[in-house]
Structures are given as C-alpha cells and as structure tokens.
C-alpha cells in the first residue's frame, strides 16, 4: 500500500543494537553465561545427582521389562513342559537344558515371581518418578535463579549507565534484552544444559552396554555418531547468526510498536496510520522471513537426525538378522540389543533440539553481555571521596564539551563562578548550549576539557551520589512516573513526610490544583504523566526537585508551560526557599531571569555577555533585543 512516493526510510529503526554489533560466532559469551550456574553449587550438584539417578534408572528399564518377560516366558515354558506326556518331558527338558525338578519348583513359585517382578517395577517407577521430578524441578530453580541474577545485573547496569549510553539506545531494544534474550538464555541453561548432560550420559552408558552385549553389532552403529555430531556442529554454527538476526529484527518490531504507542497522537494527527501500518508490516514480514529461514534449516536438521537414527536401527536389524541366521547371535540378545539401541538414538534427537536452544542462547548471551560489558562514561573514580558540607560555590574553568569524540564542541571555553547563594541565569538562543552547561553540574556528562569545581573539589574527584544528592534539578523535558502524584513528588526522597511533600507542592504552586482532584495527592498521573496538563506536570517536577532540599537548584526552562501569574507565585516561594543556596535558572521568558545575580548570555556554545540586568541592557545588544521583544514591543505597535 502507498508504495508510490513513499520516501526511503533508511535510517529509521534501521540501526542495529548497541555498538551496531554484527553477527559473529562466539561461544565465549555462552561459556561465560554457563559460569553463572556455578553460583549455585548446591542446587547444581543436587540437580546433577538427581539426573544421574534418574538417567541410570532409565537405562535399567529395558532390563526390567526383559526380566518380567523372562519370568513369564519361563513360567509358561515350565508349565508347558510339565504339561507334556511324561515320556517326552525329560527329552524336551533336556533339549532346553532344563531340570524337571527346578522347573516344578519354579512353576510353583511362578505367581509370586511374577508379582514380585511387577512390584519391583512399581517401586522402581516411584523412584524414577521422584528423581526425574527432582531433576526438572531443581533445574527450574537453578535457571530461574540465574535469570533473576542476569536480569538484576542488567537492570542495575542500565540504571547506572550514563546519559551518553542512553542517548544511543532505544528503550525497546534494551527491554527485549532484559526479557526475551534472558528467557532464551534461561531455557538453555535450565533445560538445555542438563538435557545435554543427560543425553551424553545416556549415549555413553548405552554404548558401554551395547559393547558388552555385542561388540560387532555396536561397530555397525558407531559411524553414525560422528555423522550426527558433525551435522550438529555445522547446523549450530549456521543457526546462531540466524537467531541473532531474528532477535535484532524482533527488536525493530518492538521499537516501532513502542514509538507508535508513545507518539500515537502525532501518528493520528498526521493521518499516518496507513504508512505506519505498512512500515510495521514490513518489519514483521522481515522477522517472519528470518524465522522461516531458521525453520527451513531445522526442517532439514531434525528429520536428518531422525533418519540417521532410524537408518542405524535398520542397519542393526539387517546385520543382526544376518548374524542370527549365521548363528553368531541369539534372538534374545538381538532383541535386548535393539531395545538399548533406542537409548542411543533418543539422545541424538534430543541433542538436535538442544543445538537449536544453544544457538539461540549463544546469540542472546552475546546481546546480554554486550550491555553488561558496556563502558560507562561517567563513573566514580576508585579513590573518589564523599562530598562533605558545602557552601555551594560552583566554578567552570575553561570548560569545553563535545557529545561525541571528534565532533564539533558544543561548549567552548566556558568560565564563570557561581558564588554561594547566587542565582545564575542562562539565556540564549535555541541550541546555544544552556542545557548542556547545566547537564555538566550533576555529571550527567563529563567535560571534554577544562574542569568544574564545587567548593574547590573537581567534580570528578567526589562520588556521584554525594554530588547529586545536593542538587535538585528540573529537567527541560518533564518525565513523571506512573504512580500517584505523591509518589512522584517523593521520588528522590521516598521517606519524606506528608508535611514535607505538601510544603514542596505549595512552593511549586501545585498544592491547589492537586487538592482540586477528587483523589488529591493519590491521583494517578498516568504513563509519563499523561493525564496532567503540561503546566501541572512541570509543577509536580518542581515540587519533586524542591523536596530534595538541595544546596544547588537547577531549573531548566521548567516554567515554560506555566502561566505568568503562577510563575510569579513560584518565584516568590523560591526566592524565600533558596536563600543562601546556589541556583541556576534557564528560561526563554525574560521576566523569569530579570532578578538574577548573574545573567550569562550564550551564543553557539560561548558566553557572549554577562552581568546583571541593568548592565546587560547597556552592554549587550542581544539581551536588550530579547528584553524589548518580550516586554515593550507594544510601544512600537501603539
């Protein structure tokens, strides 16, 4: 649909995962994931123990069945012989190598023997049932715990990765890793590994039994094993990158979905539904294509393994049959042999399935460790110290900053000092670097050159937590969380009292509107605060920052959606609250910045003018122009 004139959307959602890693064969990540298993040695050993017992029990099944059959056969035989006319009895018994007295004895005890054999099976069944339950259950415990650990590690890492990492990655992509990829890895670690162990034990155990039963016949099936193993390795190697690609395509599907949910209003307003649908269709089609590709491969692998196994069985039948006819093998032996043969080929089939699990898991493990290994651009130095009591002097010394290595600097040679208790206003055109400057203070990014000090300490020498706890910040883009208004205000200090929360809300001029809601502070704000108006959101965000009782307050354009009289109220409250503390204010509205102790006028990443209002009115044409355009233009009109 709508193919004509549809612009190519080269870049959109086209980028790969973090670092854009390309498919590569690596079992290193998988090996590393397997190491997680050893964090639970007790459970692991218990599971392996249960598995050993359960598997050995499984190996005993043919033997047991055989014994029951033997008991029945011999009783029947005995009965037949004893039922023959006396003259032939001896002869027949002699022919079969039996002794009449023993036969009589056996026959008398036959019922008991049969019942005993039956009871043994029942007891065995219970034991086998118990241990195979223990095996599966323990492996689930193990794998769920590993999934828990991985997810926890992943979440912790994501929470601590610096802004620059999140600039480069999409929520949808990271989500898929913490859910789908971990699940795939879990399936392998929980089921695959133990099943593989079981298969190998079965395989080896059966081989031993077979060798003991009939050496020559075993040689017949032996060549099949390397064939199977080689095809597993080949398929496994081929499948892993395919699975990796499938996961990448799934991420893309998810990203489109997420963006369409987040930007639904824009989609609907632009009447772009059809296009988005076509786009989504393309993404799910491409995922489908990849899945089918994988299916095609396994539609060849699985039957191939079955065929190899079955042909093995046929070969044994054929050669065994010939041996019987050549009298080098008895029928009974041959039957027992073929019973065990099943245990040789069943694990082969299982291994085929495990290979597919493993290939998926390896692809997913790669993607998981990619995040866990991601370099964090902003971290505590090993010898970072706690920031003690501060007065709040912040000094930028020749600060230069660029978002990417090698790109144009966004800030150049920024130098200024905010004295304790001062209000610094940043003014400047769109994209001039105001937000970037204040982003450096809580170390969301680190400077590229120069340094920033707080009370004389380089920011990079103190711990992130102690620094950020002293800063209250209202980011330019307001983001609230899905809970209630109270939860959102108490975000930075979950232990705040009701009185403190209300005080913060009052200072942010939010208390009144909150109380107008039927549920007051318990009103849920919806995802990202979607049920609040723009100005209401901003005021909740201001309250959230004020509750931190910060030494340094940063307001980045945080009253842009607030009307003038409400803003006036907020400012009056702030003037009182922030007495003796340092604050940074960014605003496009000149009335917001008029009273600042220092106004820095920025242009293209440089400070082009500084001073107080009166000074700037004289010295800075840019400033004067802004002032007049907002506050005195009517004169011209008049």
């Amino acid at each position, binding site marked *: 649909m709508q193919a004509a004139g549809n612009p190519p959307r080269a870049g959109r*959602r086209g980028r790969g995962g973090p670092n854009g890693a390309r498919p590569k064969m690596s079992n290193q990540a998988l090996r590393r994931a397997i190491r997680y298993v050893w964090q639970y040695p007790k459970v692991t050993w218990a599971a392996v123990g249960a598995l050993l017992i359960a598997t050995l029990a499984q190996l005993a099944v043919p033997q047991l069945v055989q014994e029951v059959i033997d008991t029945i056969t011999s009783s029947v035989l005995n009965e037949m012989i004893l039922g023959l006319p006396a003259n032939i009895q001896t002869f027949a018994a002699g022919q079969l190598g039996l002794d009449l007295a023993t036969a009589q004895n056996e026959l008398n005890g036959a019922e008991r023997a049969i019942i005993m054999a039956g009871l043994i099976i029942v007891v065995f069944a219970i034991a086998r049932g118990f241990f195979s339950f223990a095996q599966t259950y323990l492996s689930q415990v193990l794998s769920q715990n590993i999934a828990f650990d991985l997810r926890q590690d992943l*979440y912790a890492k994501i929470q601590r990765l610096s802004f620059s990492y999140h600039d480069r990655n999409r929520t949808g992509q990271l989500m898929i890793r913490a*859910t789908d990829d971990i699940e795939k890895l879990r399936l392998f670690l929980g089921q695959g590994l133990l099943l593989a162990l079981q298969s190998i034990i079965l395989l080896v155990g059966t081989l031993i039994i077979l060798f003991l039963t009939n050496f020559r016949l075993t040689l017949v099936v032996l060549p099949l094993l390397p064939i199977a193993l080689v095809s597993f390795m080949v398929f496994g190697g081929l499948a892993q990158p395919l699975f990796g690609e499938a996961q990448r395509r799934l991420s893309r599907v998810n990203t489109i979905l997420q963006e369409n949910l987040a930007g639904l209003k824009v989609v609907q307003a632009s009447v772009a539904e059809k296009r988005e649908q076509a786009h989504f269709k393309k993404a799910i089609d491409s995922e489908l294509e990849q899945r089918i590709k994988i299916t095609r491969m396994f539609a060849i692998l699985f039957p191939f393994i079955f065929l190899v196994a079955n042909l093995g069985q046929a070969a044994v039948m054929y050669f065994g049959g010939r041996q019987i006819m050549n009298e080098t093998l008895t029928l009974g032996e041959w039957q027992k042999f073929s019973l065990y043969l099943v245990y040789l080929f069943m694990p082969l089939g299982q291994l085929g399935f495990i290979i597919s699990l493993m290939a998926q898991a390896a692809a997913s493990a790669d993607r998981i460790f990619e995040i866990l290994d991601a370099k964090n651009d902003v971290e505590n130095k090993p010898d970072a110290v706690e920031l003690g009591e501060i007065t709040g002097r912040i000094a930028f010394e020749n600060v230069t900053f660029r978002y990417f290595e090698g790109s144009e600097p966004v800030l150049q040679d920024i130098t200024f000092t905010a004295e304790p208790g001062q209000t610094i206003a940043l003014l400047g055109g769109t994209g001039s670097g105001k937000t970037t400057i204040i982003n450096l203070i809580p170390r969301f990014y680190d400077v590229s050159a120069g340094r920033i000090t707080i009370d004389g300490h380089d920011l990079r020498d103190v711990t992130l937590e102690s620094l950020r706890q002293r800063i209250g910040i209202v980011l330019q883009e307001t983001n609230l969380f899905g809970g209630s208004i109270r939860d959102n205000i108490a975000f930075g200090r979950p232990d705040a009292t009701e009185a403190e929360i209300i005080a913060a809300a009052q200072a942010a001029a939010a208390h009144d509107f909150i109380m107008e809601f039927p549920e007051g502070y318990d009103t849920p704000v919806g995802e990202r605060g979607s049920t609040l108006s723009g100005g209401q959101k901003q005021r909740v965000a201001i309250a959230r920052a004020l509750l931190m009782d910060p030494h340094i307050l940063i307001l980045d354009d945080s009253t842009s959606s607030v009307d003038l009289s409400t803003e*006036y109220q907020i400012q009056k409250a702030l003037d009182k609250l922030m007495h003796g503390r340092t604050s940074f204010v960014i605003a496009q509205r000149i009335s917001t910045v008029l009273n600042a102790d220092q106004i820095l006028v920025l242009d293209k990443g440089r400070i082009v003018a500084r001073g107080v209002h009166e000074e700037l009115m004289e010295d800075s044409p840019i400033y004067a122009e802004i002032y007049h355009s907002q506050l005195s233009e009517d004169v011209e009109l008049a």
Partner: protein
Amino acid sequence: MIDRQAQLLGMEAQKAQSISGTLKRFGAHFRPYWLPLLIVAAAIIFSTWMQVRIPYLIGQAIDCYLTPYASRVALTGNTAGVTLPPAAAEFFSQMAGDTAAGSNCTYTTIDPTASYQETLTGFTQLMLVMVFLYVGSSVLTGITFYAMSWAGFRVLRDLRDDVFRHIHRLSLGYFSKHEAGDVMSRLTNDMDTIQQMIGFGVVQVVQGVLLIVWIVYVMFRDNVPFALISLVTLPLMVIFTKWFSDQARKAFRQARKEIGSVNADLQEGISGVREVQAFSREAENIEQFRANNAANRDANIKAQAYTSALAPTLEALSYVSLAIVACVGGIAILRGGSLMGSAVSLGLIFSFIQYTQRFNMPVQQIALLWTNIQSAIAGGERIFGLLDEVPELTDKPDAAAMPPIEGDVRFEGVWAEYNPGEPVLKGVDIHARPGETIAIVGPTGAGKTTIINLLPRFWDVTDGRILIDGRDIRDVTRDSLRQQIGIVLQDAFLFSDTVLNNIRYAKPDATDEEVIAAAKLARAHDFIERLGEGYQTVLGERGGGLSQGQRQLIAIARVALSDPRILILDEATSSVDTRTEREIQKAFAVLLHGRTSFVIAHRLSTIRNAHQVLVVNHGEIIERGTHRELLAARGFYYDLYMSQFRRQLDAGESDEELAEEVDAFFAPAD
C-alpha cells in the same frame, strides 16, 4: 451448597465456551492457509500410519524370517536323526512359532523349507521396505514441521498486524486508561506463548491423539478385557493431568502478573533513567526491581513445580500399567490361559506390553504440552480481548469526506470530560472566521489543550457541537478532517528516524527541496546543517540528540510542510528563544495567509497580534477580545499580563516609576 455447585458449573461452562471461542477465532485466522494445513493433515495421517506400520514390520521381520529360520536351524541341529513324538514336534513348532496357529507372521507365508539364501533375500527385501519407509517418514516430518511453522508464523504475523492496526483505531482515551506496557506485553509475551505452541506443538498433539485412538482401537480389537486392564491407569492420568494443569495455570497466571510488573519496572526504569540518576534513585530502584524480579522468579518456580511433577507422575503411572499388564497376563496364563472368557497367550501379553509402552508416549507428550496449550489459549484470549476493544471514536457509517476547509470554526456550547462526571470544559463558545488567529490563554490546567484536542477529534465533545464551515465534525471522516489540520503538540514528539523523515512525516511525498524550505521557514535549517549528517542524521528516542527548542522547531517544520487549512500551535514555541519565535511568526503569517489558526501560549509576546484572545479559566471562557481591549478592561488578562513585571516591582524598583512606565507602554493608544 447447590448454589455453589451451580456457580461452579456456570463458571466451567463459561471457561469452556471462551476456550472454544478462542480456538474458533484461531481457526478463522488459519483459514487463508488451508493448503499447507491440508498438507500437514495428510502428512500427519500418513506418518501416524507409519508409526504404527514400522514396529509392525520389525515384528514381522522377526516372526517371518528370523524366528522360523533360527528355530529350524536349532531343530535340525539338535534333533537330527531323532524321530519326534507328535506332541513334542508340536511343542517345538509352537515354540518356533511357525505353525499356522502359533505364528504371528502375517506379512508373508512362511515356507518351512526355505533355504538360507531365500530367507536372506526375503529378509533383505523387507529391510529395504523399512529403509524406504524411514526415508519417507523423515521427509514427511520435515514437510510437516515446515508447513506447520510456515502457516503458524503467518497466522502470528497476521494477528500482530491486526493488533497494530487496531491500536491505531483505538482513541487516545483508551491509552490514558491502559498502560502501553500492557499492550506491548500482549504483542510480545502473549504472542510468544502462542508461537511456542502453534508450530510443532499442535502437530504433536494431533498426532498423539491419533496414535492413542489407533492403539486403543487395536487393543480392543485384540482383546477387550485385556484392553480394559491395560487402560486402568488412564483415568488416573487424566485426573492428575487436569489437577496439575489447573494448579499450573493458576500459578502461571500469577507468574504472568509478576512478569508484567517486571516489564513495567523495566520500561519505566529505562525510559526514565535520566530522572533516576538525577535524583540518585538507582539504589532504591534496583532494590524495588529486585523485589518484583524475585516475586517473578518465585511465582515461576512454583508454577514449574507443578509442570515438572506432571511428566514423572505420568511416566510412573505408565510403568504401573506395564506391571499390571505383565502380572495379570502372566497369572492368567498360569491359571489356564483365559481372562474373563478371552484367550490369553504369551504373544498377546508381549504385544500388550508393547502397546502400553507405545500408548504412554503420546499421553506423556500431550500432558507435557498441556500447560503450554493452556497458556497459549490464555494468551489468545488476551490478544482477542484487545482486538474486541471497541474504538470509542469511529466514523459515522454515512460520514462524508471533509471538503477543502474555508476556515470558519464554531464551538457551540461545548462540554468535554476525560473522566465521566468531571467536566473539564463547561460550555465553551468560540467563533473563528476564516483567516483569523485565535489565541487561547489562561492558567495551567484551565482546559486550553482540551479545547484544541477536540478539533482533530482526538476526543469527542460530550455536549454541544463543533462546526467547521457549517458541518458538524462528527459527520465527516476523521482522516479527511485531520489531513487538513496541522497541529503542533505541547510536547514535540519526534521519531527515532532521520531529520528528513521526521519533517515530512505528515506529507510523505514531499521532495527534499520542499522539506528544506519548510525547515528554513521554521528556522531549523541552520542547525540541521550543522548536525553530523545534516538532514540524514538519525535522531535518538523522542528526538534525543537535539535541544528541546530544536525539537520544537522540527515539529513546526513538519506542520509547515503539510500546509494545513487550519493550524493549531499548542505552546509550540515555549522553549524557543524570542528572536527565533518572531521570525517564525512572520514567516507563518505569509505562509498561512487566509488560514484560520489557534495559538496557545503563555508568553504573551506570542499572542499579541491575534485577532481574538480567549481567556480560559476553569473550563470556561471568561474574557474575550483583542490584546488591547483586554488590557484596557483591566480584568483577568490584565493581571496575568502584569505579573511579568511584578518581580521587577518586588525587587524594589521604584513602584510608581515602573507602574507609570508600564502604563505608558500598555495603555490602549486610543
């Protein structure tokens, strides 16, 4: 007591109905892929037949070739020169199984005098038939697997497609009440559970059922009482399966809820990571996540306890039934070879031991898949539940396309609410004539955004009506309406796509030149040029990598490009500097000459030139007029306006002096 029974029954019926309903809907989705399904069905029947046929042939190889030959050899070897009494001869031949009565050989007629060579040839031929069957069944397995996955994946794809389309049909109202995360999880987690079933799972279940039916049939054909005895554990198996899977389903339901909160945590933790770090909430968040993560783990382990108990239980039961068959059969033979009036022979016992062993395999398989089936059906229910969600806003059946808009917009007594009973707009009247600029001002939360949300029908009025060029907007199709309205939302949403594609989002067929012209108009061209790859720069999530003001400029360029008949700017320049804003205004004035526009802004410099200024408070329009008229009226608007200067006044600048100055500035000239 009775009530409770009835209630339970009622519940059961309801559950069953919804299961069959869900299955039916799946069926409907499978209909387009009837051909592969037909192939699958044929392949299943054929390979089931083969599963029965192959063991039979193995038995025949033994009974027809190996046993007779071996016993003949043994006999001739051991009994050479001895004349056997008839009874002994019969005994031996019965042992050998080559008399007509005692033999199980039905594949071929046994020639008692066949030579080694002849026997070998016959045996080899039979083996070749087997090899042929093996190859055939492997190919069939491959075809079944492929065809089923082919169809299954396509059904899933179609379902996803349907859900995605449905999301677009659902109004914004749905999403202010339901979490996007929930919708996401339906499209990912629930689809996943179905995917696990829909390919090979279904095939295995169908094949298993066929196999069971076949084996039961054969059992009853061979010996009815013995068949009953071998199936003695079947009711137990059914009961256990049901109990375990019921428990598992409950536990899984809990687990699903827990994974839901894990997902929600992830989503919020990732998308709100900047706030988390700004407020040093990492440790708390990680702890909170640990709690949900652990709850999820424990719920899963609990659910898995039931599922991992089921298979061993069934396996144990199958051994028990084996023991019963062996014991009862053995004893029956010892006691005269009859069971409840039917003859029991050694061969019969052997074949029944085989039957029970083979019967148990599909039973176990189905039991294992049972929980998966349950959760797939539950997943299907959730997905169909979403698809059944009726869109609140739909086009009337007889809705016509909106003709080119002149620009006469009327709100007549409009009421609107988000939550029933809490009106946000209370009787709003507006009349915008073609070409007019209407400014809407007022305190935050007064209802400004709500007013303009009604125009493109993001929400519908609850009372009153909105007319464009005299037509009620509910009488025209939404698409034709929205195509002519350009709206810049309060929070500029950008896609993580190239700048170019973001600008031409509402007009995909625009040329690069048009895009650049629009960007120039929105004063975005200069900074776009400075980006790493210019217009081809791929933005981060929600426009990451741009400053807030830059995002707004791109959103404005997007609307400028779409050349709307009605323009709505909802605080579109709140983060843009005044100079740029003024330039944009001038450019728009030219571009939109003769078009109606609505502008919401707090910076009053933005709205000074509007034809009408509407002051909204508490959902009502309390003042209207031009900027000057309203200032002159010295009402609400005047107060709002003056608060810009109050800080300067507070700061101690001589009150009177400033007041005079201000008065001089703003007093109406006339």
